[in-house]
């Protein structure tokens, strides 16, 4: 069944049109092209507004691990300057490197955690999180006693704590030894450092959110818009790979407060804990408290079956 009808519709191209028709048609085409170009310029106008806020240096900046110490110093000075111009606040951005012989581990005593969520709040303030969304790297689950089933947990509990029938389980980045978030990143914008902390280069991330899909612990956050922190509340002690003010459209995550922990201080969430449920330290130091916990308590990790090998441990006292 071959259809041999002559060309119809758009196919009847104006090959045989009179010259007058051609000029009229050409004129209309030119008009259409002009209108189209004008509409195109209008359509992309927001892009030009957005591009005005970005410098060429920022755009062409290299990956963190390819920046020389001098270049990184220039970059950090530029960022401090921009924060000063935008907010009037003098911040200090430091490049805190992992210390040799250190691998950080974190343990959390579920018997004493009361679910007050002060750790989550301390994280919010310490890490210059977006205020309107109330972002934090820590989510605290109110769990049913007698079950570790996350499906029975709730994060939006609003009754006085601790409830006698519940226990409380804060969850944050588990700093996995086999981090799926790192494997999936197409541009190596996130990686695991020698002290075990998984970091993000906010100036290299392309914002595809594949890592957010890959993480089994809901530990990653995306900057859906430019984070807003009132000038008076900005924490000025900032790390390049941790709590500096983040750009729009990139991923971020818990870094065990590396701007503190790599200087011998404790993470903000631990200092805020009123019950002493949190234990932080160097897994390579046999005398450390974290090693004592691992040796003397029956610890477990979250979702062991997915094979991520967390550096974050949970345990019960009794």
């Amino acid at each position, binding site marked *: 069944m071959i259809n041999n009808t002559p060309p119809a519709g758009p196919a009847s191209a104006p090959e045989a049109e009179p010259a007058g028709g051609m000029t009229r048609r050409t004129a209309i085409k030119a008009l259409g092209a002009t209108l189209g170009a004008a509409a*195109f310029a209008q359509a992309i106008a*927001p892009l030009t507004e957005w591009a005005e806020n970005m410098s060429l240096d920022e755009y062409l900046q290299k990956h963190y691990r390819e920046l020389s110490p001098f270049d990184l110093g220039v970059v950090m000075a530029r960022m401090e300057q921009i924060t000063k111009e935008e907010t009037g606040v003098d911040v200090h951005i430091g490049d805190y490197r992992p210390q040799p012989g250190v691998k950080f581990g974190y343990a959390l005593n579920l018997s004493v955690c009361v679910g007050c969520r002060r750790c989550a709040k301390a994280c919010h303030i310490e890490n210059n999180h977006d205020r309107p969304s109330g972002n934090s790297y820590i989510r605290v689950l109110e769990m049913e006693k007698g079950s570790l089933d996350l499906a029975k947990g709730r994060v939006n509990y609003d009754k006085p704590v601790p409830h006698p029938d519940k226990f409380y389980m804060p969850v944050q980045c588990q700093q996995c030894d086999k981090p799926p978030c790192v494997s999936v990143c197409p*541009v190596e914008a996130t990686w695991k450092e020698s002290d075990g902390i998984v970091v993000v280069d906010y100036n290299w991330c*392309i914002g595809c959110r*594949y890592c957010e899909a*890959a993480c089994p612990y809901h530990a990653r956050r995306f900057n859906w818009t430019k984070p807003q922190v009132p000038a008076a509340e900005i924490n000025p002690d900032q790390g390049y790979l941790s709590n500096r003010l983040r750009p729009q*459209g990139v991923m971020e995550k818990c870094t065990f407060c590396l701007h503190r922990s790599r200087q011998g201080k404790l993470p903000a969430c631990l200092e805020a804990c009123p019950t002493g449920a949190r234990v932080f330290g160097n897994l390579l130091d046999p005398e450390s408290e974290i090693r004592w916990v691992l040796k003397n308590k029956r610890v477990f990790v979250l979702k062991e079956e997915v094979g991520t090998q967390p550096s974050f441990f949970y345990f019960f006292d009794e």
Partner: protein
Amino acid sequence: MNNARVAEQFTSYCRFLWKAVCDATDGSWWFYAWMILLTALSLTGLHAWAVQVRDGLIVTGMSDHVSWGLYIANFTFMVGLAAGGVMMVIPAYLYHDHEMHDLTIVGELLAVAAIVMSICFVVVDMGRPERFWHMFPIVGRFNWPVSMLTWDVLVLNGYLGLNLHICGYLLYKRFRCERPNSKWYVPFVYLSIFWAISIHTVTAFLYSGLGGRPLWNTALLAPRFLVTAFIAGPAFIIVLLFILRRFGGVPIAARPVQVLVNIVRVTLLINLLMVASELFTELYAGGAHTASSHYLFFGLHGANALVPWIWSAVAMGIIATVMFLRPGVAGRPVWLTLACVLAFAGIWIEKGMGLIVPAFIPSTLHEIVEYFPSLVEWQIMAGIWAWGLLILTVMLKIALPILRQPHPEENFPTRVCATSPAGNTGGHSHL
């Protein structure tokens, strides 16, 4: 001498491109109306995207709980449509079905348009699209071979290149009134067959490789992707062939349509079997890892935004299967078109929103946060669809003269050149 030949080729190629531009911008008033509609929709989408880049992805309905949505859903579907285009090529080249040969370019052009759309859907999903160069070798850091996304970048661009080469070569040779040299395109056609399988397998591995998302973490995902691709692709092509016959004056033999119908008959049934297998495995044993399937099909703790969608998709799939199985369906254009539309829409839901969104609900900490696409997302989606259709229309318009030849291979030198405005004289010796 050699220089002269290069120069001749260059000017000839420029003339070819110019003719393509002329062909693509000339037509009836209906054609102009169609192109203006698509342009307007594309520009609306472009504007919505510009706003999204300026203000951030906060203008979408996505969140840290459901971090992929309509864009990635459409991306997945589009990769399938591109892979499905190869179903014109396999019968023609692997089974030497000569009547299919004439129309393979339709499947290849569809693949080009669908790949462009799928790349667009990834770009609009990015938080920092201007940093795309971070993926480039040397200046950027390309996490290959560990990241499946880098594999996807390679296979999608490779497939785009392959199909552009095949179509471009055939069109250019026709412009020069020369018989295509099979060694310059047939190996690429065979390569494109395997490549088509690879693009959808790799895209499935993007998802099935994530241990933390039980809904995706199944070995059946890649086979299901391929089967649904071989429903959506041929269904689209069948309708496209009818449109080309009706509006483009392209002679469409009964045989290619029948071959495509036979393919869809089988793939529709296989897909139903696979959906049933997944459902049985998920629901019979139960457990926390099946929560996403419960959410998708029945709702979870009062959250049920996707339930009407997925049951519509199931219904469309079943109805389309019944319609396709009717004897003599290939000879009933209206009935067949309806069946194709149902099958296509069903797959769009099932492999789009029905696959991407429920993997995030409940979240990995079992929080239930639902997702509703925002107006901006719908605008951007419509814009990319319009852009893809615009590209497809333009390319088909350029290819119309080839398609109108019942058997281009035989008619090439004489009939084409008699009417060709190219008037090329020295073109026969350059190979």
